[in-house]
C-alpha cells in the first residue's frame, strides 16, 4: 500500500469501484416461515441461508436505530447554513454559480442569504426559500464540493441513508408527512442517497419533539444482520471448527459447538457466541464515551484491526498511519477470504485510506461505518455496507491476514 496512506476517521464516504471478489461456492436460499427451532412459524422475515467452508449460516436483517440518548444536542440544531472555510464571500458567491445553482436560487441567496465570518470559516445562513429552491443536482454538487474542500463540514452536514432507500423511515414511527419531506430533500451522490438539510426538516417539525426524535433515529438507521450458525447431524464439525477458529486466533469454540450438537431441539447457535471478544463486546452497540479521546473516536479501522484482540486498545485512536498497524500485525494476501481477514479500501486517486472491515463469512462482514456515535458496530451484508461508499470517487480493496506471531 501507499506508505502515505493515513486514516481519515471522519471520512466514511468511500469512492466507488465495485470489486468483484471471488466468493467460495455458495448456495443462497431465501426462505419464508420455517418451522424449526429458533425461527418461529410466525416468522415472515426473509431468512437467508448460505453454505461454504463456514458451514451453513442463516441470517435475517435488522435495522438498528441509535437510542435517543445517543442523539447529541447538535443534531437538533435548526440553523441551516453552508460553510466555505477559508474562501472569501465573492469567491464563494461565484462558486455557487459555478456549481450550477439556478438563477432563482442565486437571487434568493443574494436577497435572503446572510454571510457570516465564523471561527470555522465563512458561513452562509440559508433561508427556507433558498433550501426549497434547490434541485437534487444542486445538492449533489454542493455536497461534492464540501467533501473535496471542507471535509469536516461535509461530515457534520451530509448524512448517507443506509441501503440507498427510504425504508428506514417506513418503520411506522416516522409520519408520512416527514417521510415526504425527507424524500423531497434527499439527493443522490452517484449510488449513495444522502441528506444535507436536516435543520430544515427539523424546523418544519415545529415543536413535535417525538417526531424529531423518530426522524433523527431513522436518519441514522443502520442495517445489520442477526446471524446463526447451523450445527446439526449434517455438519462437518471439524471443518466448521477449523474455519471459525481462524488458525487458532479464535479459540474455545469447539466445545460450545459440540454442546449444540448434543442438545435435542437445537440446531443453530447465534454467531455472538462464536465471535472473538472485541467484536462480541461491541456488536450492535454504539460508541461509548469511555472509548473516545479528545481528537478521535472508534471508527472502521479501530473496529476491524482489533478483531482478534482480547481487549480494545486505545492505541488505535492515536494518529498512527494505518500502514504501521498493517505492516506490524498483518500481511497482505490474495485468494480465498476466511473468517477474520481484514479488508482495506483505498482511494484509487491517491491511495489514501477510505474504509476497512472484517470478513466473516460469505457476504457478511463486521464493520462500523464511520466514526459517528450514532452508527453501531454491526454484522451486515457487504452490499449494505458499501451502500454509503458508492459515491463519485473510486477505490480499490486489499486483503490482509493477521501474522501468525503477532498475538
Amino acid at each position: 500500500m501507499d506508505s502515505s496512506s493515513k486514516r481519515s476517521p471522519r471520512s466514511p464516504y468511500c469512492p466507488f469501484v465495485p470489486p468483484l471478489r471471488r466468493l467460495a461456492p455458495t448456495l443462497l436460499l431465501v426462505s419464508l416461515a420455517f418451522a424449526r427451532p429458533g425461527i418461529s412459524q410466525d416468522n415472515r422475515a426473509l431468512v437467508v441461508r448460505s453454505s461454504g467452508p463456514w458451514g451453513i449460516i442463516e441470517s435475517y436483517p435488522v435495522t438498528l436505530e441509535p437510542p435517543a440518548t445517543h442523539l447529541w444536542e447538535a443534531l437538533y440544531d435548526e440553523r441551516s447554513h453552508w460553510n466555505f472555510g477559508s474562501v472569501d464571500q465573492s469567491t464563494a458567491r461565484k462558486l455557487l454559480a459555478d456549481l450550477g445553482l439556478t438563477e432563482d436560487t442565486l437571487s434568493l441567496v443574494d436577497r435572503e442569504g446572510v454571510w457570516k465570518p465564523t471561527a470555522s470559516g465563512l458561513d452562509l445562513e440559508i433561508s427556507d426559500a433558498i433550501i426549497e429552491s434547490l434541485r437534487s443536482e444542486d445538492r449533489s454538487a454542493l455536497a461534492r464540493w464540501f467533501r473535496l474542500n471542507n471535509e469536516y463540514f461535509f461530515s457534520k452536514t451530509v448524512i448517507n441513508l443506509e441501503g440507498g432507500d427510504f425504508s428506514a423511515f417506513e418503520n411506522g414511527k416516522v409520519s408520512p408527512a416527514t417521510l415526504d419531506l425527507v424524500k423531497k430533500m434527499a439527493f443522490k451522490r452517484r449510488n449513495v442517497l444522502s441528506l444535507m438539510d436536516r435543520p430544515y426538516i427539523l424546523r418544519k417539525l415545529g415543536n413535535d419533539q417525538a417526531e424529531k426524535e423518530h426522524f433523527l433515529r431513522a436518519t441514522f438507521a443502520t442495517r445489520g444482520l442477526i446471524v446463526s450458525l447451523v450445527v446439526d447431524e449434517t455438519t462437518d464439525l471439524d471443518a466448521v471448527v477449523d474455519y471459525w477458529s481462524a488458525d487458532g486466533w479464535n479459540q474455545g469454540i469447539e466445545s460450545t459447538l459440540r454442546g449444540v450438537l448434543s442438545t435435542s431441539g437445537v440446531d443453530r447457535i447465534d454467531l455472538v457466541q462464536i465471535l472473538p471478544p472485541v467484536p462480541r463486546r461491541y456488536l450492535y452497540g454504539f460508541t461509548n464515551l469511555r472509548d473516545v479521546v479528545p481528537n478521535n473516536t472508534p471508527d472502521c479501522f479501530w473496529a476491524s484491526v482489533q478483531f482478534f484482540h482480547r481487549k480494545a486498545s486505545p492505541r488505535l485512536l492515536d494518529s498512527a498511519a494505518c500502514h504501521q498497524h498493517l505492516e506490524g500485525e498483518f500481511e497482505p494476501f490474495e485468494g480465498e477470504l476466511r473468517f477474520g481477514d481484514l479488508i482495506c479500501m483505498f482511494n484509487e486517486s491517491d491511495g489514501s485510506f477510505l474504509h476497512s472491515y472484517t470478513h466473516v463469512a460469505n457476504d457478511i462482514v463486521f464493520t462500523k461505518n464511520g466514526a459517528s456515535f450514532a452508527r453501531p458496530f454491526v454484522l451486515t451484508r457487504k452490499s449494505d455496507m458499501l451502500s454509503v461508499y458508492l459515491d463519485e470517487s473510486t477505490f480499490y480493496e486489499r486483503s490482509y491476514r493477521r501474522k501468525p506471531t503477532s498475538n
Partner: protein
Amino acid sequence: MSRPPATVVFRIALPLLLLTADCALWASTLRTREVIKPPPGPWGALEYYRIPLDAPESYLQFLTTPSQQVEWSFPAGNEATLQGLLQEAGMTDAEIRLVTNGSTILSSSEIMRVFPKDETILTIPYGTRKKLYQALSRYGENRYHLRPIYIDSENLSSWFAGTNIPRSAIEDISLLAYPTPRERGYFFADTPFTLRRASSILDEKEILRGLLRKQSLIVRLRITQDSLTKEIDDYWTAGYKNKAVMPLLESVVAANNGAAIDIAHLLPATPRQLLNRFPSPADGIGGRLPDWFWTCYNFFRFVPREVYADSPERGQLILDEFVPTLPPLHFGDMLLLNSGPRTVHGCIHIADDIVFTKNGPDLFSPWVLMKLEDVVAYHDLYGDISLSVYRKPPAPPSSTP
C-alpha cells in the same frame, strides 16, 4: 467393606449405561441434552440449554499434574488430635477407623498427612465421604476438597461427552462423586486418584482437562411484537443501566416476529465480551485474574475496575454503589452467597434465577450462565449458605452515550 447405598449407585451409575452402549455415538452425535422452556416472567419467554466449556488446549501447559497418591492433610500433631478433628466433623469411631486403618500416616508437629489405601478410597460410604471431605475442605492443604469439582448432572456420559477421559476414569468418578450438602449435584474431589487411569503423560493432561470442563447455559429470549411490552423493556434496560438494548429488541421483532434472540445480545458490553470464555493469561498481566467480585462489580461498567473479593475497598464499594434489596430479583442484581459471616461468592442475576458468574479466581474458571441453585450448590461446602441481594440504583437518563 461398606458398599455405597444402592439407590445412590443407581443414580450415578445408570447414565454410564449410555456411555457403554455405543462409545462412538456418545462421542459425536448423541443428543443427551434438552432445551428447557420455563414459564414466562417479567423478562419474557426464555428457553435455555446447557453447553460444555473446555479450556483452550494451550492452557494445558499451565497445569501441574498432581501425584496420583491421595493425601489428606490435617492440622494435627498427633493421632488423638486427628481423632478429635474427625469426631468434630461428625464421624463415628467406626467411620474413623475405616478411613484411617491401613493408611500410611506421616506426621510432624503441625500437620498430619494421611495416605489412604486405594481400596479405602473406593469403598468409603457416601455419607462418610461427605463428612470426611467436608472436614478436609476446611484446611487449605487439601486443595481438591477445598474446591471440589461440581457436577450438576447425574448423566456423566453427557457431562464428559466429547472429552478424552477414558471410560475407566469416568467409572471411578461415578463411584467417588458424593452429593453436595444441598443434595443438588455432586462433588468430586479425587482428581489425583483418577489419574491412575492414565497410561501416558498426555493422557494425564487430557484427564485433567476433562475434569476441568465447565458447563454453561445458552439462553434465548423469544419475542414477538405482542410480547415486547414495556415491562420487558423495563426489565432488560434495568433503569437505564443497560439502555442500549432496546434498539436491538425493537429491530428484531420488527424484522423477525417470534424470533429467539440469544441473551448474550442483551448483556452489557463487559459481561457480553466475557460470556462463555475462559480468562486469558493476558488478563492477569496486572498481577491477578478476575474473580467473582470483579465480575459482579463490573457487570454494568463499560471499563472494568480492578477490584477483587479481597480488596480492602470491597465493603465500601458495595455500601456506596449498591443498595440492599429483596426478591423479586431484577436484571443485574448482585447476589452474595454468605457462609456465616463470610461472603464466599457473588454472582449477577440475569432472569428467572439464571445468573452470570465466575466461580473461581483462576484461569480455568470461565464466565458462565448457570442456574442460581447450581451456583449455590457449587459454593455451599457446608450446607449453610444464605443469600443477600444488592441492587445498583437506576442511572438517570443521560444525553450522552
